[in-house]
């Protein structure tokens, strides 16, 4: 049994696993009980499992746990809470940006990564940043509007 130590949403975690092949997604969901990061394809194609690793957006479904030692992981649970929502989460609520909502956790993470790099993205830049996330219900325009609004709030202009 091997042990892996890293930070998740600001907290140090230590996970002991028999199976070295366990991807980060399964560790988050099945070992740490963090269900916000969703399984969508297991092929790094749909973005449902997006998390930040040392600030960079990463699809967690195939990310081997052995590469995580000492790293910092942020999941959707680490963005905010209903009492203290991240501006992106508040904007998604305000815009009712979602239908089934299965894609939203991954999209919020991708959007957070975008806004950290580019605080004033154009609609086109938002679209391109989210092209790695699939939304099948057709909530795209609301989602992009919410990201624009959150960006404005974070810049202090709204």
């Amino acid at each position, binding site marked *: 049994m091997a042990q892996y130590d890293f930070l998740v949403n600001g907290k140090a975690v230590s996970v002991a696993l*028999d*199976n*070295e*092949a*366990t*991807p980060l997604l*399964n560790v988050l*969901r*099945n070992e740490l009980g*963090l*269900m*916000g*990061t*969703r*399984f*969508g*394809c*297991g*092929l790094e*194609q*749909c973005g*449902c499992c997006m998390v930040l690793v040392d600030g960079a957006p990463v699809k967690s479904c195939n990310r081997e746990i052995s590469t995580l030692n000492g790293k910092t992981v942020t*999941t*959707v*649970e680490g*963005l*905010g*809470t*209903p009492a203290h*929502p991240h501006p992106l*989460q508040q904007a*998604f*609520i305000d815009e*009712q940006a*979602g*239908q*089934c*909502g*299965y*894609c*939203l*956790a991954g999209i919020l993470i991708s959007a957070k990564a975008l806004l950290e790099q580019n605080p004033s993205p154009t609609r*086109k830049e*938002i*679209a*391109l940043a*989210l*092209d790695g*996330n*699939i*939304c*099948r*219900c*057709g*909530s*795209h*325009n*609301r*989602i*992009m509007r919410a990201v624009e609004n959150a960006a404005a709030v974070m810049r202090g202009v709204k």
Partner: protein
Amino acid sequence: MNAPVLPGTLNDNPVLERWVSFPAPGKVTVNTGRVELGQGVLTAMAQVAADELDVAPARITVHSGDTVRAPNEGYTAGSQSIQTGAVALRQACADVRALFLDQAAAIIGCAPSELSIRDGSILRNGASTGQDYWILAGAIDLSANATGTGPRKAVSDFTSIGHDTPRLDLPAKIFGDAAFIHDMKIDGMVHARVVRQPNRGGNIGNIDKAGIKRAAKGPIDFVQTGNFFAIVGKDETAVDLAGAAALDRVTWQNVERPSPQQQEATWLLQRPSVDRVIGPPEPSDPQGRERFERTFTRGFVAHASISPSCGLALYKDGQLTVWTHCQGVFPLRAALARTLKLEPSQIVVNHVQGSGCYGHNGADDAAADAAIIALQMPGTPVRVRWRREEEFVHEPKSPSMVVKVRALIGADGKPADWTAEIWSGNHNGRPGGGNSLLGEEALPGYVALPPANEVPEAAGGGATRNAEPLYDIAHKRIVHHMITEQPVRVSALRGLGATANVFALETCIDELAERAGQDPVAYRLSITSDPRARAVIEKAAAMANWNPKAPGGEGHGRGFGFARYKNKAAYCAVVVDLDVEEDVRLNHVWCATDGGLIVSPDGALNQLEGGIIQAASWVLKEQVRFEHDAPTGPSPYDWETYPVLKFSEVPEIDIVLLNTKDEVPLGIGEVAGGPVAAAIGNAVSHALGARIRDLPLTRERIAATLLAG
């Protein structure tokens, strides 16, 4: 005495406590047979109950979709939730409210008409009476049947219906809670993956169990009954690895694979069919009128839900409990009882949210998988989660269709006789429609069920849905060829046959306008007398600043599309603006919809936006092709072999809702598909100066059309 005719699904579920109860002081529970599929229906039901009971929405808990407490409303499908489900709940609440007012009046010694209710408290001429729902609840028998006599509120008095209410289900999805069935954990639960029978009648040859165990890198077990073979274990990663490894460590006999010829709709034309004519016979003599004939095709389309299907089951003490994200818990219970040789009374089926389904995807089958395994492992909760590839290969597909339109055109340039001849598989392959559950086909002693019946015309039809134009045409008919034998399982996808049928009919209308030298909008209005249809057509044209003289060709185009869903639900007109180079680039979509009474305006807009984007994806990108090399068959198996519209490809969308204060709601969830398909097709034709009558409108088809031009 005859039972009263009650609104919607209240007829089948007349007992009031099936709909409404007062479980604790200050609390109201509303039950609905409708399930949350991401369309916001539970929030809408809370709004309906808040208004008709006169209680604050915050007091209401909506309980949805189980076989124990909820009313049996069949499937959450067909844009029916508001049209037949909310109207039932509305009347049930009105009846309950009237019972309480009668009781309060008797206690107080006044006429019920002197009483009103504010947030559950009963007032007399505006002043408190000390009575409320919860005080009176013990004295009122809600096991009584609805009478339909409780006065419903006037639309103008609604304070919740027609006003935007934030969706109840969204916060959990935005803050990352365990919102989905995939997130359920039951103590002692095992994970499972099924090694899928490639086709009905496929037999297991060899199983390299040692090889599968090695690949698992952790402890796993096997469950086998007949040709149903599954891997189970406590560690999901091990089960996943074993499931993937098993694909080439289990061999199959009697394998049948779909062929690339079968992927094109024209394959249907040579197949045996069950035929019928709906409407008057087709005239053999055109009587001097000009014949007009066009043929349209559309391939198989996948639901392509963002998450693969999931199901949980526990068999304990002779009772089976199943958790599923399917659209109809009662039909699934019946199918499970048949599959497992249990009585329905031994089975409880609970709905838990999944990702958007848009119709009959793998949800029922994943639940059946879990149930089959659970019966082999009494006392152990079983969670089955399909693999991405499994969902693409094995979910039931929307059947391919050929639609041939034949019309006779009078001297005035208008159609006088219209025939839609349709070749299609069945759009009603649901468990309740007569089809097997997937895992059932692999069990010992499986006997194929008789072919499923297509959706009845009274319910809007399946393949025939919207084949008949709403336009003023003296004689109309449908010739329907149902092709039972299909290369893949086929079933219901949002809109059923309406997408292909409206695409065909509205393309023809566009061509007829062109032939008559008229603007497509003016031509449509010249053959439309229904005032609500005229209103949406005129509104969409106005929203888009429709210009009859806009030049076409040179790569830029605008197109129009219109339908009234099922010819009896919502009206929808759409204008699309796009550019065509190698691919189609959607710029803007304008949509005017009359869905009658709207419970949640923003929810309706969200559904329409989603319908528009999904239809655009179907029309521009989607076809299930049998030419790929998936590990388990020649099918799309991932998001590269089955791409859908991306963020950078969606158009701007403007929607206007008309007539939202009407008394009667008309289903809007599926209305946009056909009009959007037609408007995109007509806009592409406007841009290219040539017609493409085959969906999807791929780069290859556009290039071929340009070359031919």
